[in-house]
């Protein structure tokens, strides 16, 4: 278990670092610029360094070669002269001793070169002396190719660079070997080879390489630091702008950027501040407008209501005394009172709508069981339903349907839906369903009355909309009820939707998120009772946007509403 865990940790470690790098790359402009600069700097420094290194190496070798070949020529001449003038070439033994002496002499004592005297390839003389070697090199260091080249060319020097392993040292040293023919008395053609180990050159190159490496690293860090500082100069104001913009967006309209100097960033700050000032001004104007509107509504409200109160009391007084009047007067008193009721209702609705329009409507949220609200509405409208002959049934889901909403407003919406259903239900049964899911609670009010014609489901929420302008207005609605209900739903970030078919009745559904900070995923109740999955185009009010046509609805867990026996 532990082992497996450790492996996992090791595996996830680098992966996590990589993931972090990728995130930094995506999110930080500064990181991106610094990283790019570092990579490019590394590439350029590497190329330039390698090129310079090679040039220096070649130069060093060339210098050495020039010196070595000149020296070898001199020494060979000296050897030739020595062999030509010798009187010690009587026999093979003395010649060998002599050759040894000469080689030692030529090799010198400073150990900067080693000398090898070796019988040429293809020498057929009968007298043979063994190869002579000076210093810590073996006879075998002379490569076969060089030996052949020297044997074939009687006059010129031959040279080659090979790694030579000196006795007593661990590693091979690149060495220049210069070879030339000499002719020995008795023994014939021999090759004399000078081995020049380039230890010093090699050491110099190592030092140069190390210097390049360290210098390059320092330079790279410097480039990185410069890139960091430069991008910081640019990115910091941009970040500040982003922060300020964020605060502006969250409502701190007085927030401004600091603007200094005359450069590009200063002009960014100036433009930004100009934009913020313009925003602040416009929002201020809008707020002012809204305040003026609210004030106006409030004043109208007060100015109209006081005289209306007096009229109301006077009318009620007259109405109560109507039995003593002659019939025409009595009927007038009745009409006066009825119309005054209508006038009052209209005024109340108009004022309510203007409150929404002015943005003055506020939610007074309380956690409430939707079933309670519905029961309350049904109790309050029982007499109206009785009068119309409609039986109202509430299908209790059997569990609480709690949500945070403004009970006064939601009650008003539900009352509106129920009263509408009763008034347009033509005395047929009315069914109210309540349900909840993870995100929302819903109330659906279904009637089996005249229903809605195609396209009307989107119009019912319009102010003062009437299904049939020619139809006799038997009911006393103000024409604003559903518009207010829609505004109330919108204030809750909820949905209010309608479905209907001619002759089949209609269904109005209110869906409200369970808490203020949630959004609705799907409504717990179907809107279209015939096709719970695929619903007709419907009117959606959500998140403060205007009414939009929604083409589909997510599948609902509850089955469609069953048709009742009372249906024609």
């Amino acid at each position, binding site marked *: 278990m532990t082992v497996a865990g450790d492996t996992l940790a090791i595996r996830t470690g680098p992966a996590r670092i990589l993931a972090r790098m990728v995130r930094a790359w995506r999110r930080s402009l500064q990181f991106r610029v610094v990283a790019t600069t570092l990579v490019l700097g590394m590439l350029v420094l590497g190329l330039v360094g390698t090129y310079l290194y090679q040039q220096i190496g070649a130069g060093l070798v060339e210098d050495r070669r020039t010196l070595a070949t000149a020296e070898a020529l001199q020494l060979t001449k000296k050897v030739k002269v020595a062999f030509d003038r010798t009187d010690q070439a009587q026999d093979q033994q003395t010649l060998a001793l002599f050759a040894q002496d000469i080689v030692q002499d030529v090799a010198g004592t400073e150990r900067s070169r080693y000398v090898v005297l070796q019988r040429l390839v293809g020498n057929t003389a009968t007298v043979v002396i063994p190869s002579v070697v000076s210093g810590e090199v073996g006879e075998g260091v002379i490569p076969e190719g060089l030996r052949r080249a020297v044997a074939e060319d009687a006059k010129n020097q031959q040279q080659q660079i090979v790694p030579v392993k000196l006795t007593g040292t661990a590693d091979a040293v690149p060495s220049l070997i210069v070879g030339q023919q000499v002719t020995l008395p008795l023994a014939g053609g021999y090759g004399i080879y000078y081995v020049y180990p380039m230890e010093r050159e090699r050491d110099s190159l190592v030092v140069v390489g190390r210097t390049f490496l360290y210098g390059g690293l320092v330079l790279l860090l410097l480039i990185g630091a410069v890139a960091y500082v430069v991008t910081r100069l640019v990115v910091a104001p941009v970040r500040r702008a982003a922060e300020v913009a964020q605060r502006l967006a969250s409502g701190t309209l007085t927030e401004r950027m600091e603007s200094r100097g005359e450069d590009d960033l200063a002009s960014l700050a100036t433009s930004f501040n100009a934009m913020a000032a313009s925003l602040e001004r416009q929002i201020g104007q809008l707020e002012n407008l809204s305040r003026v509107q609210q004030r106006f509504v409030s004043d109208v409200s007060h100015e109209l209501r006081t005289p209306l109160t*007096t009229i109301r009391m006077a009318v009620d007084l007259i109405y109560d005394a109507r039995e003593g009047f002659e019939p025409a007067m009595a009927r007038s008193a009745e009409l006066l009172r009825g119309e005054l009721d209508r006038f009052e209702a209209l005024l109340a609705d108009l004022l309510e709508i203007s409150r929404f329009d002015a943005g003055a409507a506020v939610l007074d949220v309380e956690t409430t069981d939707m079933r309670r609200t519905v029961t309350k509405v049904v109790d309050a409208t029982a007499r109206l339903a009785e009068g119309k002959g409609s039986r109202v049934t509430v299908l209790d889901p059997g569990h609480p349907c709690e949500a945070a909403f403004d009970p006064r407003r939601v009650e008003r919406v539900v009352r509106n839906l129920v009263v509408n259903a009763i008034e347009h239900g033509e005395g047929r049964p009315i069914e109210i369903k309540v349900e909840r899911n993870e995100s929302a609670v819903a109330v659906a009010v279904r009637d089996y009355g005249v229903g809605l014609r195609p396209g009307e489901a989107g119009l019912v929420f319009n102010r003062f909309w009437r299904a049939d302008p020619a139809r006799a207005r038997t009911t006393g609605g103000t024409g604003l009820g559903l518009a207010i209900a829609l505004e109330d739903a919108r204030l809750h970030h909820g949905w209010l939707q309608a479905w209907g078919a001619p002759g089949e009745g209609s269904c109005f559904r209110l869906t409200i998120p369970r808490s203020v900070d949630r959004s609705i995923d799907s409504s717990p109740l179907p809107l279209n009772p015939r096709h719970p999955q695929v619903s007709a185009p419907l009117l959606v009010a959500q998140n403060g946007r205007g009414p939009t046509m929604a083409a589909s609805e997510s599948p609902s867990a509850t089955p469609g509403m069953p048709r009742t026996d009372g249906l024609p």
Partner: protein
Amino acid sequence: MKGRVLVVDDDLALAEMLSIVLRQEGLEVSHVADGSTAVAAFRDARPDLVLLDVMLPGMDGMEVCRRIRAESGIPIVMLTARTDTVDVVVGLESGADDYVVKPFKPQELIARIRARLRRGDEPEPERLEIGDLVIDVAGHSVRRGSEVLSLTPLEFDLLVALARKPWQVFTREILLEQVWGYRHAGDTRLVNVHVQRLRSKIEHDPEHPQIVVTVRGVGYKAGPA
């Protein structure tokens, strides 16, 4: 119904109409039109109830309410043309017992007034206990030990309603009906505001009430004695 009502309203037509309606109910009515003279008129008239318009020249209705409340627990019913939450709550917090929104039906106003004046009619000797408080219903007094707590008549009625049935949870609607005399749905904020005011006077720690306990999602009940 008997009693004296002081109408404070700058609209003369409304004031006159109010007088007509209230006199029909057998009440004595006096009238003052200016906010700045309202408090003086209140001291002269010694009414049993004040009908107070919110918008007044001279002195704001809220301020008049606050001043009257400072010297008397007498029932005050506000007349308001605004239903905005803020206006209503500010009105209630300045000490009003109830409010009526214009335009109101005369029966509605009379029901409100009747509920506020009714209290004098039922002087049955009764002693109630709630928490560590002792209520003398006939004597209109509430004591904690030897200390007498000063409540307005409305707060007293609210406390008595809860204390009479300590086992029962009262919804706001029921309290509106029993204490304020609403026959139909009323504004439950009335109950909230007055429960807060009552708690600030009788609870040891109004933040953690022991005597008037909230039953979440339902209403209020009396705490264990």
